[in-house]
C-alpha cells in the first residue's frame, strides 16, 4: 500500500514537472497564438491588441502560477483556438483515441504474440524467417509509410476499406493496423526471444521428463514466463498509444487526443497543449502502475517482494 502511495506521489511530481517543462518550452520556441489566430493579412495593431487581451504580455511566472492555481481546481482553462474548455475538448477527443488504441493494441497483441510463438516453435525455419522479416518491417517502417501503403492498397487498389475515418468500425481498421504495426513487430520479437530463452531452461527439461511434448511444455510452462516482459511492453505501448497517436490520427482524420495536441502545438495554444500533455502524462503514469501490478500478478517473485516490502 505504501509502495502504491509512493507511486502516486511520484505521478503528481511527474505531472508538475511535465507542466513546467511544457510551459518553458512554449515560452522558448518562437510563435505566438495571437499571430496564428489573426492570420497573415492582419496588422501590427491587431496582433498587439490580441496579445494584451489574451494576457500573453504578462510575466512568465504570473502566467504559470495562474495556470497551476486553476489547474489544481480542475480548471484547465479555455483553448485559445477552439474557444472551449480544454477539459471538454480532451474528454470529447479521448473516446476516439481510446477506440483507436484498443483496436490497434488488439491487433498488435494478437498478431505479435502469435507471430512470436510461431517463430519460436520453428526456429530458423521458413515460418520463423517469414515472421521475423515481417516483424523487422514492423519495427523499422515509420507509421506514416505504413498508413499510406495501407491506404493505397486497401482503399485505392482493392476498394476494401475507407480512406479516412468516418465514425464506422470499418474505417477504424486501417488506422488501427497502421498504429499497431510497429508494436506488433516489437511484441513478436520479444515473444520469440523470451520463448527461445525459456526453451533452454532446466524446468522445461523437467516438464518434458514428465512426459510433455516439447511444444506443449513450451506453450504451457514456457510461455507463462516468456510473456512477463511482453506484458510490460504491452502496457507501456498501450499507454503511449493512448497518449495520442499524432501521425495516425492526422492521416486518417480522427479527432483524437493526438490531433488535438498537434493542433495545439501548431497554433501555440498553451492551455490546450498543457491540457493534452497533462492528460497524456497522467495516462502514461497510470499505464506504468498497471503494468507493474500486472507483473506482480504474473510473476510470483515480484509478488513476494512486494509483500515483503509491505
Amino acid at each position, binding site marked *: 500500500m505504501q509502495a502504491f502511495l509512493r507511486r502516486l506521489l511520484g505521478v503528481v511530481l511527474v505531472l508538475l514537472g511535465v507542466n513546467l517543462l511544457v510551459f518553458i518550452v512554449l515560452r522558448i520556441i*518562437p*510563435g*505566438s497564438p495571437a*499571430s*496564428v*489566430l*489573426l*492570420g*497573415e*493579412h*492582419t*496588422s*501590427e*495593431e*491587431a*496582433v498587439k*491588441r*490580441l496579445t494584451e487581451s489574451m494576457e500573453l504580455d504578462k510575466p512568465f511566472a504570473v502566467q504559470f502560477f495562474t495556470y497551476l492555481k486553476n489547474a489544481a481546481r*480542475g480548471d484547465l482553462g479555455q483553448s485559445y*483556438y*477552439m*474557444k*472551449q474548455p480544454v477539459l*471538454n*475538448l480532451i*474528454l*470529447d477527443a479521448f*473516446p*476516439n483515441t*481510446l*477506440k483507436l488504441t*484498443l483496436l490497434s493494441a*488488439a491487433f498488435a497483441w494478437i498478431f505479435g504474440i502469435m507471430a512470436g510463438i510461431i517463430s519460436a516453435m520453428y526456429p530458423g525455419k521458413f515460418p520463423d524467417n517469414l515472421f521475423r522479416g515481417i516483424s523487422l518491417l514492423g519495427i523499422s517502417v515509420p507509421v506514416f509509410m505504413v498508413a*499510406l501503403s495501407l*491506404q*493505397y492498397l486497401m*482503399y*485505392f487498389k482493392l*476498394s476494401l*476499406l*475507407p*480512406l*479516412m*475515418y*468516418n*465514425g*464506422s*468500425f*470499418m*474505417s477504424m481498421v486501417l488506422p488501427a493496423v497502421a498504429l499497431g504495426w510497429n508494436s506488433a513487430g516489437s511484441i513478436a520479437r520479444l515473444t520469440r526471444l523470451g520463448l527461445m530463452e525459456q526453451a533452454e531452461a532446466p524446468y522445461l527439461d523437467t516438464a518434458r521428463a514428465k512426459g510433455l511434448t516439447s511444444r506443449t511444455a513450451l506453450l504451457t510452462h514456457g510461455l507463462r514466463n516468456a510473456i512477463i516482459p511482453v506484458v510490460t511492453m504491452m502496457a507501456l505501448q498501450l499507454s503511449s498509444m493512448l497518449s495520442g497517436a499524432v501521425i495516425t490520427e*492526422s*492521416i486518417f*482524420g480522427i*479527432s483524437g487526443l493526438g*490531433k*488535438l495536441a*498537434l*493542433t495545439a502545438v*501548431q*497554433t501555440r495554444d498553451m492551455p490546450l497543449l498543457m491540457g493534452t500533455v497533462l492528460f497524456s502524462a497522467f495516462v502514461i503514469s497510470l499505464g506504468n502502475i498497471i503494468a507493474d501490478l500486472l507483473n506482480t500478478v504474473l510473476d510470483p517473485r515480484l509478488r513476494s517482494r512486494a509483500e515483503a516490502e509491505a
Partner: protein
Amino acid sequence: MKKTFFKKMSVTASALAATLLVASCGNSPAGNGTETAKDTTAPTTAPTTASTGDSTAGSDASSGEGDAYLNIALNSDIVSMDVHKTTNDYLVPMNVFDTLFTTVKNPDGSTTLVNSLADDYSISEDGLTYSITLKDGIVFSDGTPLTADDVKFTFERILTLPESAQTDYAIAIDGAQDMLDGKASELRGITVIDDTHLTITLAEPFAVFLAQLAAPSTSIMSRSITTNAGDDFGVVPEKTLGTGPYVVTSWDKGVGLTFEYNPHYWGTEPSVKKVTAKVMDSSSMDMAFQKGDLDILDCMMLDSAIVDSVYKTSYSDKIVSVDRLGMNYLMLNEDSEPLNDVNVRKAIQMAIDRKSILDSIYEGDGNLEDGIYPTGCLGYSKDNQGWLSYDPEGAKKLLADSGYPDGFEMEISLDSGNNDASKNTVQVIAQNLNDVGIKADVKTYDHASWLDLRNSGKMNSFLALWILDYNDPDNIIYTFFGSKSNSAIRSCNYSDEATIARVAAARAIVDPVERITEYGNLEKKLIQDDAAWVPLFSLKHLYVVSDRVESFTPHWAGWSDIYFTGVELK
C-alpha cells in the same frame, strides 16, 4: 461542470465497451454505433434537403437526395468561422455569410462590383457619404430579419472585438479610430435611417471603400444572433448564422466541416445542397479524387509532379483554371545589412532567373511580373513591365560596385506549410543567388514561428504570395507600404517615409484617373527605383473537377476557398 464531466466519462466508458464488443465480434456492420460526443450536432434550423454519408471517407461514398452533394478537401482546418477574428480562411464567410456588394469576374478577366445585400447605393459628390438601401425581405438562416442596424453592428464589432483581425476594413469610417481607441461606444459614421436604409460617412474620401464592402472580411452579422451566441459565435455551428446560401451543420475540429443549403436564402437556389469539406494530406486527396470520392481538387495542394504527370495528362479535360490575382514575391528586409543598400537589392532582382522558375517548376502556367500589382489587378500597367531581366553578370558587377565583390550571407525563411513548388522555388532562388556569390541559406520554420519572425520585422528575406482581397491596387500597396508599421510587420521595413506618405495619401484621391496614375508612379518608385522587393510572377490556379461537376467558377482572384454556388452539378 460535474454533470458534464460524468456525462463525458459515461460516453468514454460506453465507447470503450462498444469497442471491446466490436473488437470481439469482428463482424459488426459499418455503422455509427461508436459515434462520439462532438460539438457538431445539426443546427436547429438545419434543413433536411440531403442526407449524404461521410462520402469523402472512402469507398462508402454515398449520395443524398438528388445527388446534390459536393465533396471537397482542405489541406488544413479553418481557424474560426468568425471572419472578424481571422484573416486565415474564408470558406465559411464566403458561403454562410453575405456582404453588401460582391465581386464578379468578367469573361475578359476584369472584375465588376455588383450588389449583394445592397439593393441600391449612391455616393455623395465629396466622396464621403455612402447611402445604401438594403434588399427587402432578407433573413438570417434562423429567420431573423436583416436590418440596417445589423450593418452598423457589423462595423462596430470589427472595431471593438479585442481579437478583431479586420480593423483595416472599418477604419475609414468616420469615428472608427475613436471606437478602436475605446473613446466612443457607438460608430458615429454610420446612421441607420430605417430597417433598410443607412448612410456610411467616411473620415476622408476613400475610393476603395465600396470594393472593401465586397470582401468577405466585411461579412454582415446579425446583432441579436451574434450577441446571444457570445463566445460561441464562430465556434459552434448552430450559433454561427448568416444570410448566405449555406449553413454549417458540423465542424469537427481538425477533421472538417459539413454545409447544407439554407432554405431561407434570398438568392437563387444553388445546384449544390450539401458539402463535405475534409482535412486531408495531399496523397489522400490524390487517391480520393482518383477514386471518385472528391469532386473538386485544388492542384495547389498537390505535389506539382503529380499535377503534371497525372492530372495534366489523364484529366486534362477536367482541369478548370483561373488567372490568379496574386503576386509571388521575394521580400528583402531593408533593416538588415547589406539589404539596406539599394544596389544590393537591385543585384538580387537581377540575379534571379524568374522565367526558368516559372517554366520549370510551374510549367509556364503564369505571367512574369515586374511590379506590385499582378496581372488583372486594377492599376496594372504595361508601362511598368518588361524592365527587369535576368542578368547575373550585371548583378555581380553591381555587388562589386557596392563593396561586395565576394558576395555576402543571407537567409531566406520558408514557411514549412508551403507547397512543394514554393519550396523548390526557394531552392532555385538560393542557387541563383549563390551563382552571383551571395550565400543564401534557406531556413525552414513551422508556420507559427515563421509568422512570429515575420511579424517581428526581423526576417531577413522570404518568399511569399499575396492574393487580392479586393480588386484594387490599394489592397496590395497599402498593405506593404501604407505605413511604417504595415511595412514592419511584413519584415519589409521600407525606409522612404515620403513614399510611404504618398501611398497613404493616394487612398484619398477621388479622381479615378489621377488615382491610378499615382499608383503607377508609386509602383515604379518602389520596385524599379528602390527595389523594395523582387517581383516574381502571378500564377494560374488549377483545379480538377469530377465527372459529377457540370461547371465550376473559382473565386475571381483564384483563392483556394471556393463559392459553392459557383458549382453546377450534372
